[in-house]
C-alpha cells in the first residue's frame, strides 16, 4: 500500500516535470531554425557572423551571460548588431554582426549599454572580434585586375590594421592591429567577397592548397 502511494507520487512528479518543461519545448519548436535542424540535422547556414565588440571570447560563456534583452542593438548607431531572432536553442536572441550587411564602427555604445558581463568595455586596441583575411586569389589588385583600395580607405584604424604591400603598392595587406570590425567586408566591391572576418588564430592570408 505504501509502495503504491510512493509510486503514485513519483508518477505525479514526473507528470508535473513534463508539464513544466512543455513551454520550453514549445518555444524551441516555434523557431524555424530548430524545425530545419529536425528536417536536415547538421546544417549550418551561419557564415561570416561575428559577435559584437567586447564580447567574451568563449562563445559558451557569452551565451550564458547574454540575457537577450537587445540593448546592444538598440543603441547601435549603424544598426549593425542583429539578433539570432529565428534560431532556437542556446544562441536564440543573442546578438551578432554580419559584416557583409553592415560593419561595426567601433563606437563603444553596445559595451556601455550591456547590463551583463557579456559585452565588456574594452579599449579600442584590445577589441578582438576576429581578424580580416584576404583571399589573394580573388582580390582585384592581387590578381592584377585593377586598383581598388576600398578596404584600406575605409578602415577606421588605418595604418596599424591594414596597409599596402611593399612591392606592389595596390595590394592590401592586413596587419596585426586589425580588430575585425568588418567595415572592409562591407565595402568590398568584389562580389565573391575575397575579404572576411575570421578567428585571429587563422591568420590574415588564405592558404590555398595547390
Amino acid at each position, binding site marked *: 500500500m505504501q509502495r503504491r502511494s510512493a509510486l503514485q507520487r513519483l508518477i505525479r512528479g514526473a507528470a*508535473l*516535470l513534463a*508539464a*513544466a*518543461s512543455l*513551454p*520550453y519545448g*514549445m*518555444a*524551441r519548436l*516555434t*523557431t*524555424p*531554425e530548430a524545425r530545419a535542424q529536425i528536417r536536415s540535422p547538421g546544417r549550418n547556414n551561419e557564415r561570416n557572423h561575428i559577435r559584437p565588440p567586447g564580447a567574451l571570447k568563449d562563445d*559558451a*560563456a557569452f*551565451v*550564458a*551571460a*547574454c*540575457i*537577450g*534583452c*537587445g*540593448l546592444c*542593438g*538598440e*543603441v*547601435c*548607431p*549603424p*544598426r549593425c548588431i*542583429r*539578433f539570432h*531572432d*529565428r*534560431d*532556437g*536553442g*542556446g*544562441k*536564440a*536572441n543573442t546578438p551578432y554582426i554580419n559584416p557583409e550587411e553592415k560593419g561595426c564602427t567601433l563606437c563603444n*555604445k553596445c559595451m556601455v*549599454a550591456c*547590463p*551583463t*558581463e557579456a559585452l565588456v568595455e574594452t579599449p579600442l586596441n584590445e577589441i578582438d572580434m576576429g581578424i580580416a583575411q584576404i583571399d589573394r586569389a580573388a582580390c582585384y589588385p592581387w590578381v592584377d585586375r585593377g586598383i581598388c583600395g576600398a578596404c584600406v580607405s575605409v578602415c577606421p584604424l588605418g595604418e596599424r590594421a591594414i596597409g599596402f604591400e611593399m612591392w606592389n603598392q595596390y595590394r592590401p595587406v592586413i596587419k596585426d592591429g586589425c580588430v575585425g570590425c568588418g567595415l572592409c567586408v562591407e565595402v568590398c566591391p568584389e562580389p565573391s567577397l575575397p575579404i572576411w572576418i575570421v578567428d585571429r588564430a587563422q591568420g590574415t592570408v588564405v592558404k590555398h592548397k595547390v
Partner: protein
Amino acid sequence: MGTPKPFFLWRHLNKLRWLSLSIVFAMLVALPFMHVYQTFTAAHAYDLLAPSEKQLYDVMETLTAVFTEDPAEDLDAIKGNTWSGSFFGLQLSDPLAVAGQMAAGLKVYAPFLLTALIPVLFTLLLGRFFCGWICPATLLYELNTNVSTWLSRLGFKVGNRHFDRRLKYAVLGVGLLLSAATGSVLMAAIYPPAIVGRELYYAFALGGFGAGTLFFVGTLLFDTLVARRGFCRYVCPGGALYSLLGRYRLVRIRRIAESCNDCAKCNAVCEFGLDPLRDHFGQECNNCTACIAVCPTQAMTFVLRPTDIPEQGPGHLGKQYLRAHSEKGSIDAAP
C-alpha cells in the same frame, strides 16, 4: 461612524493602471522607431534615404524636436524593454533575467544583480505588481480576455479550464535547471514581456518578427481556447518568481465584510481567478485593483499588513440571512 470606507481615489486606480500599461506598451512601440531615426541622424545622409524612410525621419523629427537638439545622443536616455532597460541612466532588469543569468552562468555578476534591486524591493512591498501595472504582455492578454468575453457572448465556446497554480513554480524551477544545464537563459524564450519587448524591436527596427511572436500568439490562443488568462495564471515563470517575492507583501487588498453584499463581481472580474469574496488573495494577487473598481458597495480597500486577513465570512446581507435563519429556522423570516 459605521463601516470604514475606502479612499475615494482607489476606485479609479484601475484606470491609472490601464494608462500605465498603455504608456509602457506605447514606449516599446516608439523606441524602435526612435532608434531607426537615430541611425538616420547619425549617418547624416537624409538625401540617401528611401521615400518611406524620409517620411519616418520627418515624423520622428517633428515628434522629438521639442525634447532634443541632438537625437543621436539624447534619445539614448530611454532604451531597452522591461526585460532589461536603461531609464535616464538607471539600469533596471527583470528579477527573472538575473535569476536566469545566474543559473545559466553558475556565477554572480554583481553589477547586473544590482539592476534588479529596485524591482525586487518594489515587489517585496507591492507583490506581483509588475504583472498588473507594467508588463507589456498584460495589456495584450487583458484585451484578449475582453475579446474572449465578446466572443462568448456571440456564442463561441471560450475555454475556462482550471489547472494547478503550482505548475508555474515548477516551470520556474525547471527553467532554472534547464538554464544551468544548457548554459543559456532559456526563460527569455517563454517569458511574454521579454518576448513582446524584443519582438516589437525586431519588427519595427530590424524588419521582421522573430520566432517569439509565434510562441506569443500560441499563448494568446491558449488563453482564449483553454483557460482564461491561462498563461499568466499557470505557466509564467516570471509571475512565479514575483509571487514568491511578494508572498509577504505589505500592501494588499482586503474586503470590508460589513459593506460587502456577496455579489461576487470581484471574483468574476479577477484576471488571476482568485477569490476576493472569501478573502483568499494569497501570494498571487497583483494589486491590479480591478476588484476595487468593480465593487458596487465600496467594500474593497487597501490594507498594510504582511498576510491576508483571515476569512471573514459572508458580507452584511449574508450575515443577516444567517442570523435570521439560525434564530427562527425559516428563510421567510429574513428581512
